[in-house]
């Protein structure tokens, strides 16, 4: 991105040319990949023209002014269709911008369009999108991951230099891992959720996805920091791009939680992550085995809480103020018919589960119990960070699976096995490619840092990145 910024600054390329190149790549590859739900060709070119004009007058808004970005389609964009991957919102145009969108536009970034996702971000493969599955640019018979599969694939396929995703249980990191890009789930509260369509408000975060660690850090610096319109962000500091220092790993205490290397983990994934750990050790890091036994309960806890919160959040989709309405003689029937027709199978499944765990006779046994187990997981993670500076694990148990391979919902939920703990405990976590398996598919490594330790996580990621040899096989 520094290179692009320099080319723009030197006048060797214009923002309009950059946007044009992205649009060409999209029209060339997206028929197959399906990363975008909406491409805003005209809007992006207009914004690029404005950027070029600003630059000509010496009034650029940031060093990144004119570099286009793609936005996940559950993040509100004023006047630009925002579907959440749902039939229910297939024609919905928000009347305001999310804070993160405002901030990117404030830095001069033209918006290329809106990327595909599992409906309302519920899923791990984008197979649950009402707009078709997003295919993995490394192997189009495989999924791009999810729910931010569109953003990950767009970046991997060279359709966009960078993109925003959202992460509730792994929805940035898992697709980043599957598509060989870098993705950060920030500390809970570090980025404003205003204007982001909620899946589970106690877990959701917006984060950057990009091709390199530095690019992800730059994009993060543009969106991080307190926003008065999101009360959970009000204590959050902004983020400034650090001075990169490879010496940061000397003496760094790296926790290796044994539970994340247990059965179910593919051998090639384990091999790549262990090799990366050894290279860190060679550079002076101190590896420390550590136990996060609570991870055994992470998925069950996550599932209970996310379905409960989702069933409550989705109550707003009633066919009254926005979205599709199915006419009926009375309101209750109209609500039920509109929701029955507008929502897809996974959304209905989670609404049903969530309604069950929140119903009066089961609330204590399921929902409250899960909240208390969450506390145990959180305390365990806090204790871990008293002993180590970062935790390193695989991002996912396997590389990208085949489209249609996971038919059982419980099996699908297991792809968040290593990522959900960061959401439950609110810490930050980043995934970056650390190698490729024998089929040429990217393998992701996850670095978890304590609350608000994004700078350290980026520093460590940058060292890992430098030590990984690039894959033989590129995307598309």
């Amino acid at each position: 991105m520094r290179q692009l910024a320099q080319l723009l600054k030197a006048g060797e390329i214009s923002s309009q040319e950059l946007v044009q190149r992205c649009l060409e790549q999209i029209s060339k590859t997206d028929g197959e990949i399906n990363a975008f739900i909406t491409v805003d060709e005209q809007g992006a070119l207009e914004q690029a023209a404005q950027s070029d004009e600003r630059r000509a007058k010496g009034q650029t808004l940031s060093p990144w002014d004119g570099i286009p970005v793609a936005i996940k389609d559950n993040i509100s964009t004023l006047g630009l269709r925002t579907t959440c991957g749902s039939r229910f919102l297939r024609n919905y145009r928000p009347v305001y911008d999310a804070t993160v969108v405002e901030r990117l536009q404030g830095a001069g970034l033209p918006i290329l369009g809106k990327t595909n996702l599992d409906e309302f971000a519920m899923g791990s493969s984008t197979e649950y999108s009402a707009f078709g599955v997003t295919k993995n640019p490394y192997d189009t018979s495989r999924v791009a991951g999810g729910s931010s599969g569109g953003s990950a694939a767009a970046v991997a396929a060279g359709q966009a230099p960078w993109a925003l995703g959202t992460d509730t249980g792994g929805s940035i990191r898992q697709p980043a891992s599957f598509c060989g890009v870098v993705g950060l789930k920030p500390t809970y509260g570090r980025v404003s959720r205003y204007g982001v369509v909620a899946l589970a408000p106690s877990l959701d975060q917006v984060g950057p996805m990009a091709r390199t660690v530095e690019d992800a850090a730059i994009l993060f610096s543009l969106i991080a920091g307190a926003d008065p319109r999101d009360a959970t962000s009000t204590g959050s500091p902004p983020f400034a791009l650090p001075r990169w220092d490879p010496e940061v790993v000397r003496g760094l205490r790296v926790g290796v939680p044994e539970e994340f290397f247990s059965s179910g983990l593919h051998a090639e994934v384990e091999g790549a992550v262990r090799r990366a750990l050894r290279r860190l050790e060679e550079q002076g890091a101190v590896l420390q085995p550590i136990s996060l036994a609570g991870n055994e309960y992470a998925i069950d806890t996550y599932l209970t809480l996310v379905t409960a919160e989702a069933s409550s959040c989705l109550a707003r989709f009633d066919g009254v103020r926005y979205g599709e309405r199915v006419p009926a003689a009375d309101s209750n029937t109209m609500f039920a018919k509109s929701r029955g027709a507008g929502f897809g199978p996974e959304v209905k499944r989670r609404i049903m589960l969530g309604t069950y765990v929140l119903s009066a006779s089961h609330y204590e046994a399921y929902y409250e119990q899960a909240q208390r187990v969450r506390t145990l997981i959180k305390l365990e993670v806090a204790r871990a960070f008293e002993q180590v500076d970062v935790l390193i694990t695989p991002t996912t148990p396997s590389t990208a699976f085949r489209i249609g391979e996971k038919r059982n919902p419980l099996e699908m939920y297991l792809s968040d096995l290593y990522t959900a703990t960061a959401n439950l405990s609110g810490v930050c976590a980043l995934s970056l490619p650390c190698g490729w398996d024998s089929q040429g598919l990217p393998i992701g490594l996850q670095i978890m840092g304590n609350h608000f330790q994004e700078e350290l996580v980026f520093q460590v990621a940058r060292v890992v990145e430098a030590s990984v040899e690039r894959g033989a096989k590129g995307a598309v």
Partner: protein
Amino acid sequence: MIEREDVLRMARLARLELSEEEIELYLRDLNNFLASGRKLQRVDVSGIEGTSHAVAVNQVLRSDVVGESLPREAVLEAGPDVVDGYFKVPRIVEGQE
């Protein structure tokens, strides 16, 4: 064990119209899910308080200043049925139209 009646009750509470196939599907899924929920019930949480937010947030206050609201016309434009500046819905209470 969850029965068909429970599924129908949940669907009613959630205002969700389900097809016969979906009722069967979610009957099975809810029962599968219960196994997962029961796993959590084996964890000893005595004396542990529940977490509702990952990072503790205390009362967040702001000064009571009138801000700008979204433009009424634009908001109404998104509604499926709008009359005289209001969202129109079908009958809510029984009785005469």
